[in-house]
């Protein structure tokens, strides 16, 4: 096991990184996929020094006495700030835990778990199991592919592009916006209290759809779906295509909109 205490901007290189754990308080953490040797670059640093360790292929970046489990319990404001950029092999699974720091993850193919409090989370081209949990931070994601789990209090989620095997979203007031295509037999489950849900699926999607809002309006562009309006219950349900996949949206007061993406070449927008 190798251990470093980083108290100034520096760059470290590592061979054989098979797993990455990062816990930061404030600042930015970025993880990029690279075929090059894994590296850690600390750009800015203030407050306590960072503890970096590399053991059995597991690279850990953290502060003293800041465990993964206890991370989200740390509500005491801290001044420890670091801007960290890490490159790892694309097939390296990662876990990031941040308080107010923002996180950027790009190009990884073995999934990523990012838990934050107020920092924004940006995911780009990440495939595999993707878990993003946040209190108030916004999650912005492009071209994800795989199993996506998202949980938030007030933070919103936006998914642009990509194909989902399963997308599970739980939020209280976060706004959920997703423009994705369903994988074979893919699932989309969205639960919100007051968060507005806007989904767009390809016109040739294949799913059983059930969308329900207690007090919000529920609308769809898919004409095969049935709308049932009753007091305190707005429901849109039915099948799109053969109905092998599953789309379910449940909300208390949020508005639900299911839009239809025109097939390629049929888009109204012409270049």
């Amino acid at each position: 096991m190798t251990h470093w205490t980083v108290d100034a901007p520096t760059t470290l290189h590592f061979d054989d990184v098979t797993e990455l754990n990062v816990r930061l308080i404030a600042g930015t953490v970025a993880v990029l996929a690279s075929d090059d040797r894994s590296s850690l670059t600390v750009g800015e640093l203030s407050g306590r020094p960072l503890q970096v360790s590399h053991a059995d292929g597991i690279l850990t970046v953290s502060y003293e006495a800041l465990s993964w489990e206890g991370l989200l319990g740390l509500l005491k404001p801290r001044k420890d700030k670091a801007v960290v950029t890490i490159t790892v092999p694309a097939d390296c699974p990662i876990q990031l835990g941040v308080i107010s720091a923002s996180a950027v993850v790009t190009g990884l193919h073995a999934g990523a778990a990012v838990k934050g409090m107020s920092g924004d989370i940006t995911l780009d081209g990440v495939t595999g199991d993707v878990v993003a949990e946040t209190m108030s931070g916004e999650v912005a994601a492009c071209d994800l592919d795989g199993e996506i789990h998202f949980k938030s209090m007030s933070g919103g989620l936006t998914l642009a592009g990509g194909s989902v095997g399963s997308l599970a979203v739980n939020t209280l007031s976060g706004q959920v916006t997703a423009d994705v295509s369903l994988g074979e037999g893919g699932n989309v489950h969205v639960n919100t209290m007051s968060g507005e849900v806007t989904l767009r699926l390809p016109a040739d999607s294949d799913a059983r759809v059930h969308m329900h809002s207690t007090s919000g309006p529920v609308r769809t562009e898919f004409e095969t779906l049935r709308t049932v309006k009753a007091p305190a219950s707005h429901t849109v349900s039915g099948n799109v295509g053969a109905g092998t996949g599953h789309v379910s949206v449940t909300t208390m007061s949020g508005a639900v909109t299911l839009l239809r993406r025109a097939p390629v070449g049929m888009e109204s927008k012409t270049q």
Partner: protein
Amino acid sequence: MTPVFRHGRLRLYLLRLLDEEPRHGYEVIRLLRDRFMGVYAPSPGTIYPRLARLEEEGLVTHDEENGRKVYRITEAGREELRSRGDELDELEEELSASVSDIVREVREDVRDTVRSLREELTRAAREMRGAERDARDQAREQAREQARTARESAREAADAARDRARQAREQARDQARQARDEAFTHAHRLREEASRLGGREQWGTWGNWGEWSRWSEWAGRSGRQGWPGQHDLGALRDFERLARDFVTDLRSVAWDSGTILGTDVIPTLRDILADTLDRIREEVFDIHHDSPAAEEPSSAEERASAEPAAPPGDDKPE
């Protein structure tokens, strides 16, 4: 992106890469590309001439391996690296700065994409809602229009009905007036005849024309006295009927007006009736009376109460 390698820096970086281990030219290119996340991808046309130049300067050398050149740093090359150590540190810093640039670019790119997607979907959702609302508004407007049309036609019908009712009333009034005028003319003729037959003195005792009871008495008396001619008796009856019809008409006009009889109606009515009576007195019966006319309604009542007292007779006007 900012230029990754300033003058001479690429050459330094190539030496550094070869210092780590001997590499193929292709491997060097791939490492450079990976290093910059594909943002900076040097072409073989850039790299191979530089490697060749380094070799000319004796800083690197190459071996053939499976037909490919594998470059290896020489001691002179290492010397160069050592002598330019400061520059190398600076380069490392710049390279990490370049990676930060990549991170920033990724983040901005994703955020832009996400923002534009959100706007697009929000707009699409709004348009869908707008279309629904338009349809709803249209339906509502149509219903409102229909209601308005129905209301208007109902009002028109009501107006027409009112007009018709008014016309009928006016017609009835005209007819009544006409009948009255005829009766007055008739009465006038009767009076003339009477004056011709009985002389004016007899009429003089009729000073209080307004008292219908007297008329009744007179009518009864006239029968006994053998008023000359059935014709005159018929005229008398007509006159009586006329007067009675007038009261009936007056009452029905009051009812038809639909307004509640206010206290201000009575004085006006009284004035008009008094005027009318005066006019009748002067124009029809040619009697000049200085005192205001008696109240006709009360006279009518008097007449009604007096009637049973009148002596019965076949010729009693009814």
